[in-house]
């Protein structure tokens, strides 16, 4: 049992309190989802529960935190390790051992548990997260999903009755995320563990007993998922995405709560809704309306082998035309990042060729290619080094040897495009993750490349930041930039990309207009990915919709049904525009 009484906290360097007078009570066995925009205090709140605040992170803590009725003010996290466990987002930093079973044993060893009991716990916990078959592997050799499950097992071995999970799925691919969530669900069934989980995806938290939404360090909403189901507007005002299916239900005037796409389809049919005649054709026709530019990048039979012999790319061919917006999808290890690193010369092909505007990239160094193909890496912190945003963005243009006047013009344009025109003098390191990501995009933009490639541009961003980042990318595309993004977020690919390249095992499995690729659910399923809920519902109802708006306007209520009738409300088509460029090559 966790009880917080009037808990406030201010970071030593912070001006504003990160937590303001939080009072709440979490009952034994409860699964609580903690939601809120970045900076709302979610992680700070979690850190007060095991003494990380104030013992490892300094600041002013007031109020009382009780664990099982005991005030924990004087306890360090290590003193509470057998009562309240912590799993972090960064799974790499949680693993210390060279062997899976020794990793799980590390915690109980620290607590002086006797050897036979440690051996029993190791077997039990590895079984719980289904890693028993890997017990003598090196943790470094595991996949992301396996590493995070190992981190979970190594905490479970301490046998805590409460578990805090701070964005445990954020750095995982869709398969890894599902594996971890399955493991957590299994835990729930196995015993009366109290769970507090921070997750940016509201849709993933529908199975919680209770959702707490924080805003500005205070509890803004607190209730069951059912109670929060229809309160999308309030959630949106707090910078939190509402339940996708709830938004659909609301638009169709249906009041039920749907746990998944299948039950949504049944309910929508029962409600008398069906596909508008000829709607599918109209959507497809609108896709093909815009004229194509010339072929800009051509990948031809690309094979890449790493020095140790593993084949990362096994013969990839595709062509990207000027002005396209392409999303590359696939699990980790499918070759997405390896592919794009070839497009700007960071990696050289083992076999095959890449042509930019008809000219082979062979022998052209990355330093020269970077002017034409810009690659924005996933984590902005891997590249930001300057003390001013302005200098950071000027880095690329200066390396090109431009005059200071030209550099200034480029930087101003780029900062303007990403909405940071006023922050040129700011220190990049005090900005939010979303703004740092924008600085990285501006740095690439300022080099004026023909193609901009973004590797997972929305990872680690909250809902608002994510919408802002995607709106920015869409503006750049509308202004004529050719865009390629790598993403795990299927809803983003559906809503923004005009073409999808689906990769598996170093090969292209599907390549075509987004609508056609997402209609092929069996093949997407082969890669362990699933289309977003709206697309799944649409596919089953015969509406090949990619966004909520398209789905709603593609449905009509038949005359026999009661209530509202006729065409569903139309209006803003969301991020999608009617002029779309279809894909140009097929596998």
């Amino acid at each position, binding site marked *: 049992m966790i009880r917080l009484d009037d808990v406030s906290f201010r970071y030593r360097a912070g001006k504003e309190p990160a937590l303001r007078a939080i009072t709440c009570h979490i009952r034994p066995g409860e699964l609580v989802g903690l939601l809120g925009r970045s900076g709302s205090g979610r992680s700070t709140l979690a850190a007060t529960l095991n003494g*990380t605040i104030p*013992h*490892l992170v300094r600041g002013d803590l007031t109020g009382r935190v009780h664990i099982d009725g005991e005030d924990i003010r004087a306890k*360090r*996290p*290590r*003193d509470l*390790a057998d009562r309240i*466990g*912590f799993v*972090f987002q*960064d799974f790499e*930093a*949680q693993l*210390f*051992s*060279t*062997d899976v*079973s*020794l990793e799980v*044993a*590390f*915690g*109980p*060893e*620290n*607590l*002086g548990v*006797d*050897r036979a009991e*440690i*051996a029993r716990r190791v077997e039990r916990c590895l079984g719980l997260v289904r890693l028993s078959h890997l017990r*003598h592997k*090196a943790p*470094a*050799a595991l996949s992301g999903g396996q590493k995070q499950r190992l981190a979970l097992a*190594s*905490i479970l071995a*301490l046998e805590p009755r409460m578990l805090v999970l701070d964005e445990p799925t954020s750095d995982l691919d869709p398969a890894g995320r599902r594996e971890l969530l399955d493991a957590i669900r299994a835990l729930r069934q196995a015993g009366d563990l109290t769970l507090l989980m921070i997750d940016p995806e509201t849709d993933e938290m529908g199975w919680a007993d209770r959702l707490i939404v924080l805003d500005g360090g205070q509890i803004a909403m607190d209730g069951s998922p059912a109670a929060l189901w229809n309160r999308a507007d309030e959630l949106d005002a707090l910078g939190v995405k509402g339940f996708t299916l709830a938004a659909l239900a609301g638009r169709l005037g249906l009041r039920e709560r749907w746990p998944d796409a299948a039950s949504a389809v049944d309910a929508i049919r029962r409600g008398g809704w069906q596909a508008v005649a000829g709607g599918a054709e109209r959507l497809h026709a609108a896709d093909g309306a815009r004229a194509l530019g010339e072929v800009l990048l051509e990948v031809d039979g690309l094979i890449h082998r*790493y020095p*140790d012999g593993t084949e990362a790319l096994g013969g990839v061919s595709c062509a990207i035309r000027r002005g396209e917006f392409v999303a590359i999808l696939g699990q980790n290890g499918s070759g997405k990042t390896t592919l794009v*690193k070839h497009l*700007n010369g960071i990696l050289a092909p083992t076999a095959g060729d890449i042509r930019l505007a008809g000219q082979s990239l062979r022998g052209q*160094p*990355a*330093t020269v290619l*970077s002017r034409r193909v*810009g690659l924005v*890496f996933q984590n902005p*912190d*891997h*590249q930001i*080094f300057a003390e001013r945003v302005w200098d950071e963005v000027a*880095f*690329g243009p200066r*390396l*090109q040897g431009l005059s200071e006047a030209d550099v200034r013009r480029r930087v101003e344009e780029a900062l303007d495009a990403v909405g940071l025109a006023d922050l040129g003098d700011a220190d990049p*390191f005090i900005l939010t993750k979303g703004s740092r990501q924008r600085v990285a995009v501006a*740095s*690439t933009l300022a080099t004026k490349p023909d193609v901009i490639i973004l590797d997972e541009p929305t990872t680690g961003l909250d809902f608002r930041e994510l919408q802002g980042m995607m709106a920015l990318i869409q503006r750049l595309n509308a202004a004529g930039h050719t865009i390629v993004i790598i993403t795990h977020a299927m809803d983003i690919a559906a809503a923004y990309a005009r073409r999808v390249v689906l990769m598996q095992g170093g090969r292209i499995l599907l390549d075509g207009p987004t609508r056609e690729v997402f209609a092929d659910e069996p093949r997407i399923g082969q890669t362990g990915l699933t289309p977003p809920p709206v697309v799944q519902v649409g596919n089953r109802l015969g509406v090949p919709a990619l966004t909520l708006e398209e789905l709603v306007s593609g449905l009509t209520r038949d005359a026999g049904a009661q209530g509202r009738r006729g065409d569903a409300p139309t209006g803003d088509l969301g991020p999608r525009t009617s002029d779309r460029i279809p894909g140009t090559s097929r596998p």
Partner: protein
Amino acid sequence: MNLFLYLDRDTCVHRLDPRTKLFLMFGSFAVAVLFFAPIPLLLLLGVLLAYGTVGRALGNLRRIWPLLLSIAAVSIVSWSVFAGGSTPLLWRATREGLVYGIGAAVKIVSMIVSGLVFLSTTKTEEIVLGLIRLRVPFQAAFAFSLAIRMVPTIIGTAVTVTEAQRSRGLDTESGGPLARLRTYIPLLVPIFLHTLRNTDQLAKALESRGFGARRERTSLLEIGFHARDAVALALGAMALAWFVWLRFVW
């Protein structure tokens, strides 16, 4: 990319107690330091290579082959030229210098090979446990293992940062020493800050695993001396005694 040296194999060297292997390693270091002449040092290198072959650890040599070769080359060339001596060979190089250089090269290579065999056949956790049994405090022994663990992490960060900055047009491969030094700032700042953040995460994760909660710590892993350790220690001690005899008596 696997940056750890440990090779998971089942050989009699792997099965030795980590303390035995520590003794053999430090013994070989002592011999390497004792001699300057190439012949006994080559003999030591031969013994170490045999030891590594039994432990099937020499596969790792392939990974550091260029490093060993360049150390040897630099040592031989520079000592030949700068050590001085009475028998001129070529330009400023002397015969005595060449012999000394070969000796120094074999000395360094032997020590690297010895360390490599140790790390290739001993799990980090075994090393920690061995050090604890040798009365090294756990915190210190664990710090050592954490240092080994951080190496691949830092190398991984460095690779990503270099790729990110090259994608922005940074030329990390050409230019004079001064120009090169300038290119290091955009690399070093993100690597340093990233590593700092990583260590912070590591500290929180360690605490949540109960690190340092009790003075007395237990261990799932078991180590202990067996007959094979007695044999290895006896052989090692005899070899050490023989080398000392060779150096001081013979």
